[in-house]
């Protein structure tokens, strides 16, 4: 069966078209205004940040030649022509990389546990009291706003040089970052199971345990793994301020122009992050697979 598309009479069509054009025009005007404001802000920011496109164009060659230099051994040969010479310090570097990963693991896990304990108090729909929510939220904001390396700078003075300062810095930063993400997941849950559990007379803790946690566990795990990935990178620079890990070696190599060492250490960091990335990706796949099946 075929049916013709009905065409409205011209008068009716005219009215509809006018209304449509008016609506679109308003939307376009708003879009244009927003774009203009955005560009104005960008220009102001460019002046504030002393952006010099000319310098950039003139010196971009340095960027390329820097990578050329870090790809060259002291003897002038390419690094890959003599792997043994390039990675002369691999034992020391590997141990430091292990320390870096361990710093981020311990820091992330401790931070995740604390964030897990705190986020239900900070989420809009599960928080027992507004003042508590406000306090915890401000606390988390503080923890994630102060960058981990600033915490590390201070903790190095308080706890002494070494990985301990790095771990605590990462832990505190993770509490703030994960707490926010966790509570956002909790705010997005379906509240019907919570009401169901509540209607049986369950306490707040039971509601969280049986109605909220099953809905959010996979999301939490996923964000924690992502955070672990981020923290491995964070831990790789903790050494810049003396808080353990590979960063110390790297900053010394950069500052003293040990070019081939820079490339060797960077390469090892990148490979480590790769492996962590692949590992967490696999773990996330497994976790979500399991959730879907259960």
């Amino acid at each position, binding site marked *: 069966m075929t049916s013709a598309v009905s065409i409205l009479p011209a008068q009716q069509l005219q009215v509809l078209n006018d209304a449509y054009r008016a609506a679109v025009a308003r939307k376009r005007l708003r879009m244009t205004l927003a774009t203009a404001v955005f560009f104005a802000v960008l220009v102001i920011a460019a002046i504030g940040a002393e952006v010099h496109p000319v310098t950039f164009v003139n*010196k971009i060659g*340095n960027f390329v030649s820097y990578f050329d230099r870090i790809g060259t051994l002291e003897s002038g040969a390419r690094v890959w022509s003599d792997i043994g010479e390039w990675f002369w310090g691999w034992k020391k570097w590997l141990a430091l990389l292990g320390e870096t990963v361990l710093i981020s*693991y311990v820091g992330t896990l401790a931070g995740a546990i604390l964030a897990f304990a705190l986020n239900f108090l900070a989420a809009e729909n599960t928080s027992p009291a507004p003042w508590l929510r406000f306090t915890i939220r401000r606390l988390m904001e503080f923890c994630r706003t102060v960058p981990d390396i600033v915490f590390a*700078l201070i903790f190095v*003075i308080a706890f002494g040089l070494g990985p301990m300062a790095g771990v605590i810095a990462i832990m505190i930063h993770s509490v703030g970052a994960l707490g926010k993400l966790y509570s956002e997941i909790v705010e997005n849950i379906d509240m019907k199971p919570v009401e169901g559990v509540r209607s049986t007379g369950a306490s707040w803790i039971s509601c969280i345990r049986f109605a909220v946690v099953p809905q959010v566990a996979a999301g939490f795990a996923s964000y924690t793994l992502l955070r672990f990935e981020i923290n491995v990178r964070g831990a790789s620079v903790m050494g810049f301020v003396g808080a353990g890990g590979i960063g110390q070696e790297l900053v010394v190599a950069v500052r003293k122009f040990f070019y081939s060492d820079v490339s060797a250490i960077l390469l090892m960091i*990148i490979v*480590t992050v*790769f492996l962590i990335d692949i590992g967490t990706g696999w773990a996330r796949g497994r976790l979500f697979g399991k959730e879907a099946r259960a």
Partner: protein
Amino acid sequence: MTRLLAPDSGDLRGRYPEVFDRPASSRLAIPAMLLAAFGIFVFGLVELEFSPARMLAGLSQLGWITMMMIPPDPGGSLPVYLVALGETLSIAMLGTTLAALLALPVSLLAARNIVPSGIFRFPVRRFLDSIRGVDTLIWALVWINVVGLGPFAGVLAIAVADFGAFGKLFSEAIEAADKKQVEGIRASGGNALHEIRFGLMPQVLPVIAGQVLYFIESNTRSATIIGIVGAGGIGLQLAEQIRVLEWQKVSFLILMILVAVAAIDWISSKLRFAIIGKRAVA
């Protein structure tokens, strides 16, 4: 009056064996995983030389430092700090925008539903990963070598570091998009670019915009630290004051950062709602 029938547990067991008789491997998987995680945690504590004595000594030291931080006091260098803060905000804003503009086209190449062939996708992904594997601070060190000390090196460092992160996040957002709308465009005769423009982008842009806004907020924090290696902004002042143990100035600087980030946070959440809310209605 109706009575609830008591559930026949035998019948239920027969009908859903996979719920009642899960194999030991699946029942023990989660406890085993938690145990392993905890084991590595303890190993880490030992390996990284954690000890209650050091912890206590450090905490008491930290208590002292906190006492010395009160009250926060700029001590006459307020104008310098305000300029540095402005620099930091500019770095964050420019760096994020630059990164997002560069990452959008590249993320299309890294998304499975746009580039089905792994041969093209794989190198792009690994390229993004290796950029992401290097921390912003390291990029800042590199860029200082190129354009000299100052905030411009910071902008470039943030742009490059975020380029990697955005590429990954955007491509994940694109992969999560609903296929039906793309198929609808194709069914009505659109070509590949039409599919991206009218099928994917309307779904993906609000997500991307949310992520960019979140990154501007988080980059304000990153931008505060790249000063530690000399790439401009408030971090330079902060690191210097910590090194000379001027705790009152340190706490003042930290407060300034907090206020600035809170302001950015507020603005970005307003914008995010404006963007997402509009989409939800349309």
